[in-house]
Structure formats: structure tokens, C-alpha cells
């Protein structure tokens, strides 16, 4: 019994330690795996004293976490899923804070003959007609949704084909799988640049207009989620979109290349 009460005391102490001023940011694997948040959030914490706990999930899962009331702020990149999230009343204010771009990467041998091209639809048609191995995230993340939109635009339904391999994992896991299987994969540039296990993978298709990848921060609806820490979450959203956060975002680079481009021009309020 003494052991039990001691354990309970430990449990309560651990719980109590989590009460300091801190917020939970549900975010995507791309901004976390690329090292962006690890570089910019300490600057915010130093300026405001607010600790930010990052849960790195795919966009779909991050929005679900917030819809359960388990996050104070979301940072995601899937315009369709975000619109649905806001329409359902979970989000009240969306700010665009950064953008980068997607690209197709794949083995140097270029089995689909698409290296150096800039047309996503043509590239997908070539991949599909050559049955070249392709890894897909399959995790309802922002990148996964963007890839699925491109297939749809190309009028191809690759689901179930044996060359189309659904790994159900994060961006890093998909890149690892593609490197191991000599397959092609659709990735955001931030994760690609900071990924350390490229092996034979190289950039194949870049520069299609539909490759723009926008990251938004969305504040949550306090009426639907009364437990959410609205005030510190608003501070982080404003910092990310403000001059200090934007400068920090623009300064994050990997191998001399900028990972994310700051872009706080647009504030979208539902109903306006």
C-alpha cells in the first residue's frame, strides 16, 4: 500500500510538472522532420516564456487531434482538409505563414524517364505506363493529399497497383522506403533537403505550378474547445505570422538552401 501511494505521488508530481505555461502545437512531420520548428520555436519561447510542445503528425491526424480538443494550435498544409476543419467550426482564424514546394524524387537511373521535366501530370502518366515503383505515404497528410490531387488531375487511379506502394507512414519513413526500394516518391522540399539517407535518390521533377506547398497556422474555436489555451496559442500564431517569426522562418537553411519561404500576406477569416 505504501508502495502504491508512493507511485501515485510520483504520478501526480509528473502530472503537476506539466502545468507550466506551455501549449501543444499539433503539426506536420514535414515542418518537424525538416528541423524548422526545432530552430525557430526556442526563439519564441525565449521571447515570451511560453513553451511549445510539438506533436508531429500528418495534417489529417493533426487536425483530428485538434478536433478532439487535444491541441492548442495547428500548423498544417492541406487546403481542402483545412477548409473542412474550419467549416466544421473547429478553427476560427487561419494565417498563411510559409510556403515551399513539393517535388518528385527517385533513383538516379530514372526508370520512368522523367528527370529534368517540370510537368506533374506528364510525369505521373509516364510512371504509371512504365509501372515504375512509386512510394505513397497513404496517411492523409498534407503531402499525401497533394499527391492524390495530382493523380486525380492526371486521370489515373493508381490505388491497388503493385508498383504503387502505400506505406502508411510519415515523410521520412516514405523517403527511407523509396531509398530502399529504388522507388519514386512525392516529397516536400524541406524534408527532402534535410533528409540524411538519400542513397541513390535524386530530384527528378520540380517546378510545376501545382507544386506550391502552403503552410497555415489555425487558431481554435474557444466555444467548441473551452479547454484550449487560446491566449498563448494566439501569441504563437501572431509571432509566426509577424516580422520576428517570419525572419526566423526565412533564416532556416540546409546545405545553403532555404527550407521555407516566409509568407504572411494572407489572413483568412471564415465568412469574409
Amino acid at each position, binding site marked *: 500500500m505504501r*508502495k*502504491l501511494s*508512493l*507511485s*501515485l505521488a*510520483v*504520478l*501526480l508530481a*509528473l*502530472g503537476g*510538472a*506539466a502545468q507550466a505555461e506551455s501549449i*501543444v502545437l499539433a503539426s506536420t*512531420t514535414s515542418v518537424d*522532420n525538416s528541423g524548422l520548428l*526545432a530552430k525557430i520555436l526556442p526563439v519564441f519561447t525565449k521571447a515570451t516564456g511560453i513553451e511549445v*510542445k*510539438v*506533436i*508531429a503528425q500528418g495534417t489529417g491526424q493533426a487536425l483530428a487531434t485538434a478536433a*478532439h*480538443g*487535444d491541441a492548442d494550435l495547428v500548423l498544417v498544409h492541406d487546403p481542402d482538409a483545412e477548409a473542412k476543419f474550419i467549416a466544421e467550426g473547429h478553427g476560427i482564424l487561419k494565417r498563411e505563414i510559409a510556403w515551399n514546394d513539393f517535388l518528385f524524387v527517385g533513383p538516379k537511373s530514372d526508370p520512368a524517364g522523367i528527370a529534368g521535366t517540370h510537368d506533374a501530370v506528364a510525369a505521373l502518366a509516364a510512371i504509371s505506363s512504365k509501372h515504375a515503383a512509386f512510394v505513397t505515404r497513404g496517411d492523409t497528410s498534407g503531402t499525401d493529399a497533394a499527391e492524390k490531387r495530382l493523380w486525380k488531375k492526371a486521370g489515373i487511379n493508381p490505388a491497388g497497383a503493385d508498383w504503387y506502394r502505400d506505406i502508411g*507512414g*510519415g*515523410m*521520412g*519513413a516514405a*523517403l*527511407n522506403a523509396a*531509398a530502399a526500394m529504388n522507388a519514386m516518391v512525392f516529397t516536400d522540399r524541406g524534408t527532402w533537403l*534535410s*533528409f*540524411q*539517407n*538519400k542513397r541513390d535518390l535524386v530530384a527528378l521533377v520540380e517546378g510545376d505550378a501545382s507544386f506550391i506547398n502552403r503552410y497555415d497556422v489555425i487558431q481554435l474555436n474557444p466555444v467548441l*474547445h473551452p*479547454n484550449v489555451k487560446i491566449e498563448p496559442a494566439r501569441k504563437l500564431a501572431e509571432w509566426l505570422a509577424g516580422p520576428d517569426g517570419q525572419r526566423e522562418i526565412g533564416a532556416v537553411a540546409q546545405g545553403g538552401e532555404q527550407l521555407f519561404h516566409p509568407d504572411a500576406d494572407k489572413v483568412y477569416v471564415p465568412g469574409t
Partner: protein
Amino acid sequence: MSAAATLIAAALGIAAASVLALVSFPARSVLVVAVNALLGLPPVVIGLVFYLLLSHSGPLGWLDLLFSPAAMVAAQAALAAPIICALVHRSLERSWAEFGPPLRILGASRLRALPVLLGMNRRAIATAILAGFGRCLSEVGAVLMVGGNIAGHTRSLTTSVVLQTSMGNLETALLLGLVLVGVSVAVSAGGIALGGARL
């Protein structure tokens, strides 16, 4: 963190094992089967159950424990407790069958007999606790779900391995994995040494 979880699991597991071994009641055999079935409990299921319980839209959301170390400890304890309970129960049951009647003849109540039985089975109990600790230490699925793998907060050795692998830092991941194996080996060795020396 794994130590705290093991402590809780040991307290719960040994208490439950004692009751199951020494007290007969109608549903006892059902419970024994249930505990043994829980030995193979998939961690992701425990993770999911605790996630749903602790989520702000779940029944225990008001505790505000999701994505905290306490949530990880709770999930780990839930995974380790059946292991400790089943292993301790097995040896207690055997000694109770053997030594129960003479102890009763000497006038010992079940409550008085328990410390004697636990003392006799200290090696088995130590092994059970080590097995529970091993489960806590190596756990990744459940702690990832309820802890959220937050840097400096709920990131454990196992979830760091997952993260480093996903970032393509395979050397770092392997190094962390070796540290994990080292801790595990050290704890087992320590347990065995302790068992040989004092138990």
C-alpha cells in the same frame, strides 16, 4: 519514467496476484485466464485505449494528462501489470498449494500467510518485476500515441529511435538503440546480481 511505471505495475500486479492465488471467489478462474491473455496485449491497443480515455473529448479529458509523461507512465504500467501479475500468480499459487495447509494448521490467516509466501517467492517476484521493466523500457507504440514524442518532454529513447530513423539519421538511431540495449542489459545483470547476493 519506465521505473515509475514498473513500480506502479509491480504494486498492482503483486496485489492482484496475491488475491487471485489465495482467495477463492466465483470468477477467479475467469480472471486468471484473462490476466494470462493480457500478457500478449498489443501495445498499440493500450495506446489507443488510453488515448481515447485521456483525450479532451474522452471521459478522463479533464485530468489534462494526454501528451504528458504521466500518460506514458499510465500506459506503460497497464502493459507491465499483467505480466507481473501472471508471473507472480503462477509461483504464489504453487507455494500456496504446497504450504497453505501447514500454514493454516499453524493458525495463520491468509493475510498472515501472504508475507511468508511472498518472501519464499522473492526470486520469482524479482524476475517478474524485471520482465515488467523490460516491457516498459522497450515500449514504443503506446508511448508514441499517448505521449506525442514531444522533444524534451515525452520523448523517450524508443521514440527517439523512431524519429531519428524517419529523419534518415540511421547512425544516430542505431547509437540510441545500442544505448537502449545497454540499459536493458545493465538492469537485467543488476537484477541477477542482486538476486544472487541477497535474495
